[in-house]
Structure formats: C-alpha cells, structure tokens
C-alpha cells in the first residue's frame, strides 16, 4: 500500500490512495503511467496509473463524469476525434506508447474492438456489418468472409437467431440483438482487446443478462475492459475492478476484494451505494 499526497496543478492539496496490486493474470497488456488528459482547458484525467492484465475482464466503475469512459476511449485513441485534446504521461499497449508521435492509430484500433453504449450497427445487412472490419482491410475472399460471419456471430451468441437472414438490414434487429451484432463486429477481425463502453445501458434486463453471459464466454480469449454504471454487473463479470472518482483512479484491484474489503473510504461509500 502506498499513500500519496499530491499537489495538483491548481495548487489544491488532494489526498488519494492508489493501490497497485498485481492480480492473478498473466502479466499486463496495457499499462497507463501517470496519464493525464485535458479537453481544452478542463482536465478530465488526473495521473492515472494502472496495469490491465492480459486475458482478464477489467471493469471501470465510478459515478457519472468520473472519467471512466474517457480512460477507455484513451486506450484506442478514440478521443482523437475531439478538438483541443491534450495528454501527458503514457499509455503502453504491448510495450509501445500509443501516444507516441509515430503510432499507427488505425493499426492500434484494428487490434482493439470497441462496443459502444448505444448499439450502432451500420445501415447495411447483418453480414456486411460483421465483415466491415475485413472490408476495411481489403479482404474480399467470399469464403473467408462467410467463415468470419459465422465465427463472429457464434462468438457473439447471435448466430442461431440470424443465420437465416444474414442479408437483412441490421437495423431491423432488436436492441439486444443489435448490441450483440456490434460485439460480433468488434471481434470479427480477431482483436487482442475488447473495449466495452457501458454496453448494456440501453438494453432491457434480459438482453443485459445475455451480454453478461457472452462476456463470460469471451473471457480468456480477449482482454476485456468494460465501463459500467451497474455495480452488480461489475461484480458479476469482472476479474479486476477500478474505481474512479473525479478523474482520478481511487482504487484498483481484484473485484471480490474491491467489493468486500475496499481500502478507500470513497470506494466503500460508492460500492455500498452511499453516493454516486
């Protein structure tokens, strides 16, 4: 345990405790090191340092506006779309700093599938949606595409439902099916990491349960990082949990420990529902 007293840029003394605990994974795949991020003049992330273990499910929890989505989007540089973005510190993926000037951002994103809060299938057929990452890579081999469609849709537990209407427009699917289609799309090109930004917040409880089941099935094959508002969900699906508050990483560790014996008072307040 290391307790840190730091003085932030505005000369406010802030007290927070960061717990670095090596979990039972096979070593870190993504490491953030004193990572700070600004949107224009407002700082969204303060000195976040955490290691994300290979092959595990890591949940990011915290109240709205705490920076968990920002952190997730920093990992595949989706934040680049925003004007006036600045960063400090480093995010290392597989040993390389992704904020390095000569990083191939497109190549980085190809190794990380992403699933968004609201299902966002493209207005194309179901199979075209799944093969979109391959189309982007210039793969047109019909057999490869067909295999990918089946493998990805089975991986996303959607195959049985849609195998007879792969040519139908994806917008005709239900919300939960659309989200699983987005997961299929994210894993179609076989990425290393699956980033999920509140994937169940627009879904009903049954669809949510299916997605959670799916995450459990995908565990081990992909390194999954999931942002969630729902603490039960974090407890159910994740191996490690990070609690963030006001742009800072407050506590990070094994999920069972975070939920049973949190070391920070803020974490305890949050996981027990006293605030947030």
């Amino acid at each position, binding site marked *: 345990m290391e307790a840190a007293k730091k003085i932030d840029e505005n000369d406010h003394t802030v007290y927070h405790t960061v717990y670095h605990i090596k979990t039972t994974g096979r070593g870190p795949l993504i490491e953030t090191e004193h990572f700070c991020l600004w949107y224009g003049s407002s700082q969204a992330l303060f000195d976040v340092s955490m290691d994300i273990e290979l092959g595990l499910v890591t949940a990011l929890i915290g109240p709205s506006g705490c920076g968990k989505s920002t952190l997730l989007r920093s990992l595949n540089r989706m934040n680049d779309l925003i004007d006036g973005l600045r960063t400090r510190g480093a995010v290392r993926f597989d040993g390389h700093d992704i904020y390095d000037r000569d990083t191939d951002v*497109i190549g980085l994103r190809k190794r*990380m*599938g992403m699933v968004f809060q609201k299902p966002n299938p493209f*207005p194309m057929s179901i199979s075209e949606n799944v093969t*979109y990452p391959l*189309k982007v890579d210039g793969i047109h081999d019909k057999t490869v595409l067909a295999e990918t469609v089946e493998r990805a849709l089975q991986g996303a537990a959607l195959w049985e439902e849609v195998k007879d209407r792969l040519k139908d427009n994806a*917008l005709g699917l239900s919300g939960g099916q659309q989200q699983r289609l987005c997961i299929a799309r994210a894993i179609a090109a076989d990425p290393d990491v699956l980033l999920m930004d509140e994937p169940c917040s627009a879904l009903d409880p049954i669809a949510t349960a299916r997605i959670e089941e799916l995450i459990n099935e995908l565990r081990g094959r992909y390194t999954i990082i999931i942002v969630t508002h729902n603490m039960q969900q974090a407890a159910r699906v994740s191996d490690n949990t990070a609690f963030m508050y006001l742009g800072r990483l407050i506590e990070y560790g094994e999920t069972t420990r975070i939920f049973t014996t949190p070391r920070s008072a803020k974490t305890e307040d949050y996981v027990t529902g006293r605030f947030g």
Partner: protein
Amino acid sequence: MYKSITFALTRTATAADQTGEAVKYIRRTGRSDLSARGEPFLWGLGGALAFGTLMIFGFLALIVWNGLVTFYPKPVQVVALSDGTLLAGEPSRSEVYKPGPQVLEHLDEPARQAIAAEHGYARRTLFRTGNFDLYNEDFRWASDFSIVSVAEPADVYFIERIEWGPFVGFIRSLNLKGETVSGAALSRQIIEEAHRRAVQRRELIREIEREEIGAVNHRLNSERLKLKRIALKQGENSGTYRQAAAESLALQEALQGRYHDLARDAQAVKAEDAQYTVTLAEIGGRGKTIPLSQVVRFTLPNDMSFFEKIRLYLSRWLEFLTDEPREANAEGGVMPALFGTFVMTVLMALAVAPFGVMAALYLREYAKQGKLVSVVRICVNNLAGVPSIVYGVFGLGFFAYICGGTIDRLFFPERLPNPVFGTGGLLWASLTLALLTVPVVIVATEEALAAVPQSMREGSLACGASRWQTIKYIVLPRALPGIMTGLILAMARGAGEVAPLMLVGVVKLAPELPLDGFFPYIHLERSFMHLGFHIFDVGFQSRNSEAGKPMVFVTTLLLISLVAFLNATAIVIRNRLKRRFLIGHF
C-alpha cells in the same frame, strides 16, 4: 378536472387567508383565455398556408389551362361590320372599354343609348385575323356595337404558313404545274394530295441544303483549317505545307464539284416547287398566291369533327415538341430550346455535384471547426444570395474570355480571330450555373453530413477504418439522400435561371444543335437555345406580343414540366436510397 384544481387552489388560498398574513397568491383559474390557447394564431397560420397554396395552385392552373388549350382549334367567325366590311378571324378575347367621344359621334342613336345605359362602357372582341402580309396586323378589335352579324361558314380555311403567320380566308384555285384547278373541281382530296407532295419537296430541299451541303461545307472548312494549322506551325514556305496544300487542293476541288452538283439539285427541286402554287383569298376578296410548300397545314376549323380536332391538336403538339421555331420564334416548335435546357441542366448537375460534395466533405469532415471555417461557411451561404446576373458577368469574363480564350490560343490557333471556346457556349453556361448553384449543394450536403450520427463514424473508426474509409463506406451512403435533395434544389434553380445565361451562351435562334453527326458529335462550345430565354423572347421581343402570348403559356408549361420531370427523377432516385435507412429502432 379543471373544477378540482380550482377547488384545491382555492382552499390553499383560504388557509393562507386565515393566518391573517397579507400574502398574495397567483390563482390559476383552470381556464385559459383566447390568446393563451393560441386559437387566433392557429387561424393566422392556417390562413397563411391556405393563401400560399391558393396562389401556387392558381398560378399552376393558369399556366396549365392556357398552355393546354392553345393548340386546340378555335372556330373562325366571319363578322359583318356596320361600315359594310367583313372581318374573318378567331375570336381570342373580349373586354369592356370606354369608347372615345369621336367614336360615339359617329354612332347611331340606339347604339349610343345602349352605351349610355352601360355608363359609357362597351364590349369589344379581339379577332385573330392573320394575313399579316395583306393587313400589316395579326389582330383586330371589333366593338359589339359595330357588329351587324356573325357567321361561322364551313368553308373558311385557317391556313398555317411557314412565313407571315396564318392565313384566314378561302382557297380560290390550285396551280399544279400550269394546270389550274378551281371551283367545283377543287376537292379536299386534291388539295391534300398536292400539299403532301409539296411538303415532300420542301423536306427534300431542306435535306439537300442542310444535311448534304452542310456536310460538304464542314469538310471544306476542316480542310481549310488543317492547312492553316500546318501553315501556322511550319510556315507557308515549308515542304510539308506545299505537299499538304497540293493534296488538299485536289480534295477541295472535288468537294467544290460536289457542292455545285448539290446546289444544282436543290435549285432544280426549287424550280419544280415554284410551279405548284395555291391562290388564296381573304374575306374581302384580295388574293394572294403562295407556293404550296409554304403551307404547314390546311384546316377547316368550322367543319371539323371532335376527333379531327383532337388529331389536329396532337399534331400541333408534336410539331411544337419536335420542330424548329419559325416566324421569329413565335411559331413552330421549341425542340432546340427544350434540348438546350435539358442538356445544360444535366451538365450543370454533373459539374456541381462532385464539386459541391467535395467542398462540403472537406468543410464538415476534415476541416478543424474554428473561426476560419465559420468565415468560409458564412461566405458560402452569402454566395447563394448574390444576384444571378453577377454570375453571368463573371462567367463571361472568366470562363468565356479567359479560359475559353486560352483554350482557343492553345488548341485552335488556326480559327482565330473567330472564337471557338472564347465566347459564350453550352459548356460555359453550364459551369456558370454550376457556380451559381454550388452554395445550395454545399449547404445541403453539409446538413446531410451533420445528420449522420456521430456513433456511426465512431463505430467505423473503432473497426480500424481510416477517415476516408469511414466517409466512403458509412458517411456518404448515409448522407446521399440529403445530398440528392440539395442537388434537386440546385437543378430546379439552375433550370429556371435565365439572366446569367443571356451573357454566357443563350441565343435567340441557334442555327445548330450542340449534338450532331460531325466529330466530336457533342459540341459544348456552341451557343444554344433555352426555354426560359425563349419565353422572354417570344413574349416580349417578337413583333407582335399578342401573337406570341399563347406560345408564352405553352413554353412556360413545357419549362415547368421539364423542371418537374428532372426533379421527379431525382426524387425517385433519392427515395430508393432512403428506403435503406427507414427501418430501425434508434
């Protein structure tokens, strides 16, 4: 429900009153007054809509009705006037007017009293008398008080001619190569048969003069230009030139010979044609002899069955749509103008679509949204408000004189000082209109791009697509219906624009279509005719605006139909594209 609310509020107020404090409550009555309900505004809004709709439909009804009835044959009336003369013509319209004192002086007592009873007003009718070559006027007013009798004789002809407008009167005799047919022998069959042959001769002359002699002239001209080109390049004393000149001389002589043969053929047919004439007589008895081939059609408007009238009506429409204009555009067809408008609009759309879409793509998808982009955007929006004549001046100065002049100097030096591209033409007119309508396309495309949800772009980028791939695969297909809408607006505006075109290539009468049988088949440098300008020309520049009026309506109808047709096509395409995005939960 209102009652219970009122009751509850009243009770609260009462409870407060009991405490004795001077508290003022705003009491809601549960009833709203007229202004709050917005009823008067509703009536105002509905009224505005109704007024607008009424105006549009009234306008369309006026155009469509007048346009449709123009070609329907009207009866010819023979009117006996009180001064003993006769007048024959189509009654075209009548109005109430106030006769002057000089006119009243010469009237008899009952007529004067009748006018006095109408507070000095009388009714008069405008007759289309035709026979411009005899009367020096096409139309004549006849006041009701001066009309003695009106008849519709079955044997009065309405004859449409190539020159001088229609002739109203009778056929006195046919002169068929020295043989005169008149009186009882002059049957309908004989007239029609002789006319049919005359029309064949007219077409033959036209074919020889326009097609064959035209082709010979074209080859002669290109030979001459080829030679001049060599002279310009290598000098007139070079061996190449002398060799080419010798070769060319033989060819030119052959062509000259062919030309003379053709001219002789044409002359022979013309001489033959001159022997077939028809002698016409107007209602007053004055005669007029014209070649039969000068007649477009003979009609007996007072002696036609309904089906004959319909046939005549359709044949006039066919002539209007497929023939060239004659009589200073006041008669004949509008095919060159229709074709010119169509080709120009399509070319404009082809030019403006990629240009506007690319500009909007950069502005919305790539450019950093800052002050500079805002300024550019404001400028683009303001460009849409620049008067179109300014674009015409710019088009003439920049496209025709600078761009076209440069092209001429570089590629057609042998034709100078005659300009090829260095003057107004179809290409420059299309580009000028494209420039005029590009703000419309940019604004519409930007809106369409902005309407593509950000989540689509993020989804694509997260799949590892580059920005360009995202635009190509996701953004553009999704924005296409909106872009099409912008294009439709641009086309509607461009097709109806006349003012700038007058400067950059539209002419009153274009001798050649921009499309013909000579290489390179499509001649974008040629000046062309345009329906909008045609309307202006026929209505306001012709010798008799009264005679041009029906043509104005018909041409307007045609222009509106053409714009509607182009728009309908684009809308059909857009709706096909749109259908893909209609289903969906979000």
